[in-house]
């Protein structure tokens, strides 16, 4: 076909232009089918939340385009796309990601009586630029086979020299760890935090890419103690009740276990802000929350009862992250972790 075109003496520039047009057409056609729908950048795409979004469309008639990715990926994407982003709503995990988005001016203030009724004030963003969807604890876990009950009762115990070579941590690249350390910095101050992390590093922890891998390695005997988000363990126990790892709730006599949030906000350049707000309202309703916490997280809506969610460990004493103070400390947290050799 091409040979025929060339033979018929079509000038080269025309052929080149044709080829470029065809390709550009295909590419653009494949990429822009979302003009009329509410585009959600969904950092919770691996949490099995799709049903909630389907229910929303069914209830409101508002069509959604879900685009999945990790929290940091979505943040970078939004930032780079700037005012040209197709996104209307950002759903993401972890305060670090929410704070970065807010700090970069990517989100816009959204509020309504419904949202205020659904979400308790303690874990709200003071600027109302994002709303929390779930609560998750980042806690020490221990091998049930090799560690006696009560051996770990606080974050400090991960730095006990008796665990030297026996601890597993996730990489410092994880927002979960960054938020945890930022919260430490906010509540304990830089010196105490540095000493704490130094003691963790002195134990020569093995470093993992994900909480799931870390749990697997613990079960296999690679280490005795670790630090994870609680719902990973809830899922493992759901699949295998004999899974040989147990939570070690920290600071139950003191502040409580570090609690982080996942959340959502309306993108500042969105031209569908009213619909976007409706989505946030829906995601915090009792019905949606029951669905969302099936993966083992805790609901933010207090109307969801223990029976509704059947989530494990709802009586654990928690210490919600210092939303206002911890966010700005995240760059310091990252610098500190890298300085101390936390890969």
């Amino acid at each position, binding site marked *: 076909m091409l*040979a025929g075109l060339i*033979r018929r003496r079509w000038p080269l520039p025309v052929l080149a232009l044709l080829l470029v047009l065809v*390709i550009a057409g295909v*590419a653009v056609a494949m990429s822009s089918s979302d003009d009329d729908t509410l585009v959600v950048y969904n950092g919770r795409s*691996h949490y099995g939340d799709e049903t909630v979004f389907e229910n929303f469309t069914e209830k409101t008639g508002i069509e959604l385009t879900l685009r999945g990715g990790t929290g940091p990926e979505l943040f970078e994407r939004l930032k780079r*796309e700037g005012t040209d982003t197709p996104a209307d709503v950002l759903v993401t995990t972890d305060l670090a990601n929410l704070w970065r988005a807010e700090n970069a001016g990517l989100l816009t203030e959204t509020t309504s009586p419904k949202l205020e009724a659904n979400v308790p004030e303690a874990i709200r963003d003071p600027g109302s630029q994002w709303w929390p969807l779930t609560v998750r604890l980042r806690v020490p876990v221990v091998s049930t086979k090799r560690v006696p009950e009560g051996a770990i009762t606080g974050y400090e115990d991960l730095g006990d020299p008796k665990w030297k070579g026996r601890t597993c941590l996730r990489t410092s690249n994880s927002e979960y760890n960054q938020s945890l350390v930022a919260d430490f910095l906010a509540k304990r101050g830089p010196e105490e935090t540095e000493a704490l992390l130094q003691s963790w590093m002195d134990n020569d922890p093995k470093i993992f890419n994900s909480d799931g*891998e870390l749990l*697997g390695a613990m079960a296999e005997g690679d280490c005795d103690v670790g630090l994870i988000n609680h719902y990973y363990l809830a899922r493992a126990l759901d699949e295998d009740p004999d899974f040989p790892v147990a939570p070690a709730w920290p600071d139950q006599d003191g502040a409580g276990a570090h609690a982080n949030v996942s959340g959502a906000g309306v993108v500042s350049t969105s031209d569908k802000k009213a619909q976007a707000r409706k989505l946030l309202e829906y995601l915090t309703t009792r019905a949606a929350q029951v669905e969302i916490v099936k993966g083992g997280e805790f609901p933010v809506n207090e109307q969801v009862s223990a029976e509704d969610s059947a989530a494990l460990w709802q009586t654990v004493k928690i210490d919600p992250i210092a939303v206002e103070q911890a966010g700005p400390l995240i760059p310091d947290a*990252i610098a500190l972790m890298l300085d101390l050799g936390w890969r």
Partner: protein
Amino acid sequence: MALTGTARRAARPSGWAVAAVVVALLLVAPLLALPASFIGEGDAFGQISGTLLPDALRTSIWLALGVGVGTLALGGGLALLVSFYDFPGRRVLDWALVLPLALPGYVLVFVVLGQFGTATPFQSTLFGDGLRIPGIRTTTGAVVILTAVLYPYVYVLGRSAFLGQSRRTLEAARSLGLSYGQSVRRVAFPLARPALAGGVALAVMEALADFGTVDLLGVQALTSAIYRVWNGAFDEAAALQLATVLLTFTFVLLAAERLLRGRRRYDQLLGEGDAIAPKPLRGWKRWLAASGGWVLLAVVFVLPVVQLAAWSLETIADGTVAPSLGKAAWNTAVLAGITAVVAVAVGTLLVFGGRAARSRAARGTTRLSTLGYAIPGAVVAVAVYVPLVWIDRRIISGADSVSGSRVGLFFTGSILGLIIAYLVRFNALSFLAIDSRMSRIDPHLDDAARALGADRARVLADVHLPLLKPGILAGGMLVLVEVMKELPATALLRPLGHDTLAITVWEATKDSRLAAAALPALLIVLVGLLPVILLVKLLRSEGWSSAAEHL
């Protein structure tokens, strides 16, 4: 090159040559512009140079050294064994040892990590409670994995060099009193040095470019550091600077290989029946050689593929195949298909334009467009992104001021940006495949056609294209397969929602959702086997030396 009729006809340069030079320059410009990221952006680099960089640099150096030594020992050793000794199963092993080329490193990592089965419902089928490999999440682990998938480069080049050696050299060595083993070691092996060095250089470059293996193993090499900085708390300039470091590293390696090899070539003219006849091994050595080769092949290729197939069947039977798999397969097919077509068109243009060009510089420039193949995907991605997003912004503000309409990001918001990155990276494959065919077309044929009144377009359409077809098909297939397996550039540049099979495997392995990774990984390996099978066929029909040139 003989003066042709075209060359004698002076005056203005051929339009084809101009077009080829412009396209070639467009393809390399982003790479050559990378060092500019150091201008006026000292801050970001200060931050990473104290923390991430030393570690990443050290890891990358260890990877390069480890994979270099590992592939030389494994690939060179196997080539030696198969070339000079005979043992049971040698004939099959001879070509089967090439097969691991079809296995991307990240797929092998997925299979290995999948053996830590207890955390998931996804129990290892072959090893029951799980086979544990201690220390896999280290630089050494990455070296082992990469050596296992990259040794065929050294094997193929070494094997073809050994086959090209004359029996007489060995006989001369033996007549001077060396044993068979000694003459292999002291004469045959050194003679194959340039070929082995070439193979090692290829393997090391692939190892430096690797992202999936090191990322999944939690090893921080330069490629994973680039990804981390790009998608992390740092900034674009820092990622570009890291990319420049990796680029420099690659060039130093290329230069070192050239320097070491120098002008040495040990080609020997072979008469009929002159090739080396392998010496049969006896006794336990015979079985050691056979079992060594087969066990290796089983461990690095057969078992992983069987395991993938078993897992895939399991997920199909359980109905746990991820619903997004079909979309990922479709995305992969579209990306790979479009890129292959464009790469073949661009490759033909470059090759034909280079032929039409009169100046050496113009021909050199078209060849320069193959540079991207030596450069890691992560580097290409960040290098290509910056100019594209600049153009995108111009388009948007242009459309806004002309018609007031709001348009999206043309390149970086669609798959176009990714296709351009693929093109920069893999254009070499189609170029070289087409070029090797073109060089076999006698220039007098062009002259004859032109003397009969055909213009250049007509020469291309009627004379060249039919003759180039095999090269075009081969080049297209190579690009297709490479794009399908590509991970780092895809991870950095894909539009959201355009996950490919490779991305699916990578993300699922990262989150320990192993069931979701099995079937896409198997698909990647099966499609990846196509060019390897083609290579094996070439090895068997055309002989090793000419087939090895396709590597």
